[in-house]
């Protein structure tokens, strides 16, 4: 065991580029924690099915390196991304199952007492790598205590056809919401419209609805968790959404997550918001070479609130109390988050996974292709889903019940007046924030 431990320390130290100092962590970094895997330890990690193959390859290669260095076997199981939430919750509830889970959004705040405190490790990593992004930290921390390890944000950006934008009379992409509306109007007039989902699209629908709300200064709840959705800012957001909706291709109120990609790649729409996957889908298919060359990406325009604000899918690593090998698990998390592994993983996922720590923002993947650039900012501009209130059961419930998505959909389709849609959203949100 001693040998294994020494091997591990040497390996992780080498990986961190401070060979020789790892054996005496005191010299390397004042607060560098060391975790010695328990004898005979083995771990199980449950993760979401990767969106791109390179993500999985890099993660497994890093894991293999960890096993080689420590002798700790790590089994990595995959589940489709919508099934992670219930599985993680059940594991927390029954106290068995995977030791580690890559969870989504505010899952950690649903059962904070079932999770191992990772504050020491998180503070060390934060200090070493330029600090955590606020939004990422918000999902994983309660006050000063880290109940999970921030892992990644899945970037979301506006994807458009350059030639269609130019044909509509715009030489460059508008930076603000007013200019964006003008662009969408002009593109509609040219027969190359935009399209954003107003249907029950778990990812894209929520991303779009939260951007509409936040860019206009609206918020679901205030800092103390009081529902404040019924506000003049929200009304502005709804009216803007109505105007924008007029410029869309018809039928977006039934769109689910996949529809915008499909319509974009078929040439039916020329402006959507999506992960980088739509670009790779076009690039892979020789028949779509023309579209791939014409694709440009940019961040969502800035609204009256004056800054970029988006939701973005966010993932954190959970370590459950029920694990038999907490030290091995912490060693694994530490190993995976250190520069060599984290950089390899970010590169491998080709712009899909954005760094949680600021020092990794200079990863070469972000400059390897100009298409990747906007996705590099995901972690910087994201806000937790229950903004500006505390995360937990209510924030998760409101989003799972599509309260915000329904509010915009009801108003833009004319089923409800903007005022009624706001009041209805307030009533529905209050059901969750009642206690």
């Amino acid at each position, binding site marked *: 065991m001693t040998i294994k431990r020494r091997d591990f320390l040497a390996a992780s130290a080498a990986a961190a580029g401070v060979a020789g100092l790892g054996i005496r962590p005191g010299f390397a970094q004042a607060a560098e924690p060391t975790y010695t895997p328990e004898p005979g330890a083995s771990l199980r990690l449950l993760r979401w099915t990767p969106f791109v193959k390179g993500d999985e390859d890099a993660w497994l290669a890093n894991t293999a390196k960890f096993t080689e260095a420590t002798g700790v076997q790590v089994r990595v199981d995959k589940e489709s991304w*919508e099934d992670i*939430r*219930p599985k993680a*919750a*059940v594991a*927390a*509830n029954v106290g068995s199952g995977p030791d580690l889970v890559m969870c989504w959004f505010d899952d950690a705040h*649903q*059962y904070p007492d*079932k999770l191992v405190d990772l504050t020491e490790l998180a503070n060390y990593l934060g200090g070493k790598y330029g600090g955590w992004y606020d939004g990422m930290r918000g999902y994983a921390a309660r006050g000063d205590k880290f109940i999970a390890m921030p892992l990644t944000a899945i970037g979301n950006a506006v994807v458009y056809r350059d030639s269609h934008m130019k044909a509509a009379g715009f030489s460059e992409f508008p930076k603000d919401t007013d200019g964006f509306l003008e662009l969408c109007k002009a593109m509609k007039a040219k027969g190359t419209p935009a399209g954003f989902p*107003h*249907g*029950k699209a778990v990812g894209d629908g929520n991303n779009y609805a939260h951007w509409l709300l936040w860019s206009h200064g609206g918020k679901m709840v205030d800092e103390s968790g009081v529902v404040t959705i019924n506000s003049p800012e929200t009304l502005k957001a709804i009216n803007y959404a109505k105007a924008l909706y007029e410029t869309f*291709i*018809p*039928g*977006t*109120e*039934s*769109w*689910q997550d996949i*529809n915008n990609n*499909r*319509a974009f790649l*078929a040439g*039916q729409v020329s402006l959507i918001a999506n992960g980088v996957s739509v670009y790779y889908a076009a690039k892979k298919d020789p028949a779509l070479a023309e579209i791939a060359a014409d694709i440009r990406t940019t961040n969502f325009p800035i609204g009256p609130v004056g800054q970029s604000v988006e939701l973005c899918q966010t993932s954190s690593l959970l370590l459950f109390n029920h694990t038999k090998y907490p030290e091995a698990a912490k060693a694994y998390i530490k190993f995976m988050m250190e520069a060599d592994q984290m950089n390899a993983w970010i590169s491998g996922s080709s712009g899909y996974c954005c760094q949680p720590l600021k020092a990794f923002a200079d990863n070469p993947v972000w400059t390897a292709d100009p298409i990747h650039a906007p996705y590099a900012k995901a972690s910087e501009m994201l806000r937790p889903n229950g903004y500006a209130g505390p995360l937990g*059961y209510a924030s*998760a*419930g409101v989003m*799972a*019940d*599509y309260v915000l998505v*329904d509010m915009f*959909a*009801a108003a833009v*389709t004319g*089923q409800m007046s903007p005022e009624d849609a706001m009041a*209805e959203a307030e*009533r*529905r949100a209050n*059901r969750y924030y009642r206690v």
Partner: protein
Amino acid sequence: MTTVPTTQMTATSTSWLQNNNVLGFLFMLPAAVFLVCFLTYPLGLGIWLGFTDTRIGRDGIFIGFENYAFLARDHVFWLSVFNTLLYTSVASVLKFALGLWLALLLNENLPCKSFFRAIVLLPWVVPTVLSALAFWWIYDSQFSILSWSLMKLGLIDGPINFLGDPTNARISVIAANVWRGIPFVAISLLAGLQTIPASLQEAASLDGATSWQRFRYVTLPMLTPIIAVVMTFSVLFTFTDFQLIYVLTKGGPVNATHLMATLSFQRGIPGGQLGEGAAIAVAMIPFLLGAIMFSFFGLQRRKWQQGGQD
């Protein structure tokens, strides 16, 4: 001395085994254990959860009727009740009418009779998720084959908004459900039609009954017990439908196609509120019991079938 008790014991156990009641009980035991474990227990647990505030990841405490009181004030819940009733009633009536019609056609002497009977079952055999995905493409707002065909024929200018408009969406999901449910009704009724003795039809013909009269006064009364069973099942399946809606709309647009089953799932699993999700599911039970009672007392009127008075 020692042999006496043994003989007595053997005699006792033999006589126990020869007792019909005991033997019957023993034979029923495996089935009863199965039913208790896989039906009664989950049902009981579901009802119990409905009275608690259990969330995924946290045990709940008993809160009485709070979930139900809460749902009673929830517009989305009442909308889902309305949607479920509309969906079930319209789809069941259509499935019955079209299924009966198909059964009558298949009961005639057609060429390649077995081929047609086999092919009619296809929609029922295909897994629901697969047929739902096919319908998802058929109803796509951009790539619908229906819209495309009608546009090529020059009948419409733009694609039909099948799943984006509340009325269209309701019609679309009902149509998909009817397509899928017809074979079950048709094949079951066909089986029923074949049990009707040809002599009765012949006797009625000799008495000068028209084909409508033969249907109305011979076929239909003889078919009623089967209709009752088939339609009970059909109503139950439709009322608890989940997959079709979940693939096509997830309950959208703006909850216009949310059924009680889909709402129960949305709140219970992704939303994490097992207690409220269970309460919605339990709220379906009175409707289901009502449907069963109606079929039991309303349609299975034996006296009437046997020519007596109601």
